[in-house]
C-alpha cells in the first residue's frame, strides 16, 4: 500500500468524506482567515456594490442598517446614469479620467515591455555576478517608497532650475516652460504632463517585469536556443522566433499585471500632478478618492465609479488572457 493512500485512509471515511475530527480541524484552521477575508475583503466589496445604488454620504444620517436609507436614499442606477451622461462636474471629470487612465495604460504597457524584454535578454547574457548586481539596481526603484521617488522626479521636472531643464539647456535645447503644469503643450494628442508621469512611472515599475522576464528566460531550455543557432539563426532571429514565442505566457502575465497596476495607479498622480493641469492627468482612482474623501464625501457616486473600474479591469484581463493564451508548454 502506498504511503499516500495510508494517509488518505486516516482522514477520509469509507464514504469518501472527511472524518468529523478532521472536519473540525479544517474548519477551525480555516475560520480565522475566512473571518478575516469575510470582514475585511468580502464585506467591503459587497458594501461598495450596495452603496453604488444609494445616494450615500456618511455625513448624513441614514437608517440603522449601515446608514443606508433615511437621508441616504436608494437611487437605483442613477449614480451610473449620472457618471455616463450627467453634466455635473464630478461626472464630467470622471469621464475625462476614464480616457486619461486608458491613455496612461496604453502608453505604459508598450513602453514597459519594449524596455524590459530586451533588457532582460541583455541581463541574461552577461556574467552571473554582474547579472545579480544589475538586477538589484533595476529592481531598486520598484521597492523604494513612491513618495521618495516622486520627490526626486519633482526636482527633475521643476520648471527652469530642474535637472531636465538644465540638461536641455546644456545641449542647446529649449526646455518646456513647465513640465508638469502647462496645459497647452501637447504632443500627438498626449499632454506633456501625462508623458512626464508615464516616464516616471515606467522608471519606477519596470524592475518588476524585468525580474519576471529574467526568471522566465532562465527557464527556457538551452537546447532550443542552441538548436536554432545550429540551424543558422541570427541573434535577432533567435530572439524573435524562439525566445519571444516561448515567453508568450510570461508576456501575458506581465501585460496583465502592468495593465491592472496602470489602471489602479494613484500615488504618483496624486503627488506629482494632483490630476492637473486642467485635469489632463486626472485618473479614475484619483476621481474615486476625491469624490469619496475630498469633495462632499459622495461615497455612493464613488462606489459606482469603483464598480466601473472593476468591470473595466475584468474585461481587459479576460480579453488579454484570450488573445495571448497558449495551448502548449515546454
Amino acid at each position, binding site marked *: 500500500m502506498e504511503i499516500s493512500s495510508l494517509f488518505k485512509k486516516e482522514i477520509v471515511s469509507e464514504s469518501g468524506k472527511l472524518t468529523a475530527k478532521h472536519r473540525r480541524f479544517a474548519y477551525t484552521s480555516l475560520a480565522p482567515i475566512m473571518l478575516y477575508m469575510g470582514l475585511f475583503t468580502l464585506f467591503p466589496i459587497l458594501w461598495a456594490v450596495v452603496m453604488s445604488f444609494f445616494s450615500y454620504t456618511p455625513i448624513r444620517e441614514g437608517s440603522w442598517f449601515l446608514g443606508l436609507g433615511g437621508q441616504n436614499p436608494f437611487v437605483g442606477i442613477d449614480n451610473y446614469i449620472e457618471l455616463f451622461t450627467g453634466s455635473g462636474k464630478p461626472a464630467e471629470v470622471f469621464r475625462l479620467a476614464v480616457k486619461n487612465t486608458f491613455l496612461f495604460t496604453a502608453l505604459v504597457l508598450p513602453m514597459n515591455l519594449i524596455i524590459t524584454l530586451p533588457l532582460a535578454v541583455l541581463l541574461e547574457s552577461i556574467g552571473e555576478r554582474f547579472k545579480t548586481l544589475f538586477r538589484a539596481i533595476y529592481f531598486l526603484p520598484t521597492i523604494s517608497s513612491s513618495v521618495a521617488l516622486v520627490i526626486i522626479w519633482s526636482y527633475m521636472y521643476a520648471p527652469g532650475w530642474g535637472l531636465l531643464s538644465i540638461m536641455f*539647456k546644456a545641449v542647446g535645447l529649449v526646455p518646456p516652460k513647465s513640465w508638469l503644469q502647462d496645459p497647452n503643450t501637447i504632443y500627438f494628442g498626449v499632454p506633456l504632463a501625462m508623458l512626464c508621469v508615464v516616464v516616471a512611472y515606467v522608471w519606477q515599475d519596470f524592475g518588476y517585469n524585468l525580474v519576471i522576464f529574467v526568471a522566465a528566460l532562465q527557464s527556457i531550455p538551452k537546447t532550443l536556443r542552441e538548436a536554432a543557432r545550429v540551424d543558422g539563426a541570427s541573434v535577432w532571429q533567435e530572439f524573435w522566433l524562439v525566445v519571444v514565442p516561448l515567453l508568450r505566457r510570461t508576456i501575458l502575465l506581465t501585460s496583465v499585471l502592468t495593465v491592472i497596476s496602470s489602471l489602479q495607479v494613484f500615488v504618483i498622480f496624486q503627488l506629482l500632478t494632483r490630476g492637473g493641469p486642467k485635469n489632463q492627468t486626472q485618473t479614475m482612482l484619483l476621481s474615486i478618492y476625491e469624490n469619496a*474623501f475630498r*469633495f462632499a464625501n459622495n461615497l455612493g457616486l464613488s462606489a459606482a465609479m469603483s464598480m466601473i473600474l472593476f468591470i473595466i479591469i475584468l474585461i481587459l484581463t479576460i480579453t488579454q488572457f484570450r488573445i495571448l493564451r497558449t495551448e502548449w508548454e515546454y
Partner: protein
Amino acid sequence: MKKILFVLVLASLLLAACGGGATQAPAANEKIEIRVWGHQAPAFNEADQAIFDEFMKQNPNVTIKYETFPWDVFIQTIQTSLPAGNTADVILIPGGYTCRYAAGGQLLEVPANVMTLDQAKEIFYAAPLGGQTCDGKLYGFPAEYNIEYGGAYVNPALFEAAGVAYPPKWDNWDAMVADAEKLTTVGSDNVMTVAGLHYTNSDQLFTYFLAGILEQGGEYFAEDGKHFNFNSPEAIAAIQKLMDMAQKNKVVDPIIFNADSEWVGESFAQGHNGIGILGSWYGGDAKLAYPDLKFDYVTIPPMMGSEYRFASVGGWGYVVGKSTKHADVAWQLAAFLGANESNVLAFNSKSGTVPAMKAVAAEPKLIEAAPFIAAALPLLDFGQYQGFLTDPDQLAYEIIYPTILDAIQGNLTAQEAANSIHEAANAMVDAAQ
C-alpha cells in the same frame, strides 16, 4: 435553552455597550474623562494643552484626553465618527464644517445658559461666528478668524534689488501692481524666475473672486440663497481683473506659479516672488522653517474698489458632539477654550491665528506675541461669513480655481470662465438636493 439565554444576555450586553448613552449629570466629585479631538499642528496643540492643564487644575475631577490626528486622518475620522456617534466630547473643527454636521443632527447646540446667539454676536466678529451658526442657532465657539484676504508677504531684498520703495505704501491696488511689475524678473530663456505678485494660488483665486464680486457691491448667491450667481457683470469683471494682472501687467506666469507649482508660501520663502498674497497664518510657519528669511506682512488695498469687503470660511471652532455623555462638562470646557478672554488671547498669541473675539483683537499683547496679525486687524470688521456653499471644497478647488486659472493661462475669456463656473456650481447644488 441555556445557550440561547446566554446568547441573548451577551447580545444585550453588547448592544448596551455599543449604544449611545444619554447625557447624565455627573455626581459631585465623580471622575470624568473628557476626550478632545484636534488636528496635528504644534502651535495649536501646545496652546490648547496649556488651557487643558489649567482647566484640569480648576476641575480636579476632570481628566482631559487630547487626541490629535494628521490633517487627512482627522478629516476622515470626524466624517465617519460623527455620524456613527462615537466621537470625542469636544472637537476643534475646521471652518465651514460645523453646519454640515449640525444639519445632520450630529452636533449639540450651545445651551442658552452657556451662551446665547445674541451674546455671541456681541463677543465675536460676524464672519467667524457665521461659521458656527446654522439656521439661526449657535453650535460652537470660533477659535480664530480665517482670513486669506487683504494681506501679503513682502521681501525687502527683492524690493531693494528692483529699486522699489520699502516698506511699500500703496494707495490702491494698481499702485501695488505697478510695483509688482518692477519686481518681476524673467530669465534669458524667457522663464519667469521672480513673480512680482503671486496671487494664482487656489485659495487666493477663490478668495479674491468672491471678494471682487463683493467689493463691487455684487452678490454671489442667487435669490434662493442656495444657488449661485457667478455670471453677473461683477463676477466677470473680477475674473477679468485677475486675468489682466497676468496677461497685461505680466506680474506672474500662471503656468509656473500656481497651487501645484511654486506654491505661494514656499515660492516666497525661496525668493521666487516679491509680493506673495497669503494669509497671515503662514508668517509663523515661515519664521520656523526659514529663520534667516527677512520679510514683512503688510495690508494691501481692495482689488476692485475703495472699500474692503470679503467672504471668510469662518475659522476653527470648538463644538460638542451629540454622543457626549457629559454635555455640561464638555460645554464648560468648550467655553473655557473659546469664550474665556484670557484663554482665547493665549491661544491666538501662541498659534499666531487671527482672533475671532473682538476684545482679544483690541488687546496690545496680541501684536507683541504675533506681529504678523497686525496687518489683518484693520480688515476684520469688513468680512462676512461665506455662507452655505453646499460643498466648499468642490466649489473652491474643482470649480472656481481651475476655471479661473484656465482663463488666466489664456484658454478662456472672462465671460466663458464665469459661465462655466456658474453652470458647474449650480449643477453641484442641484446634485446635492
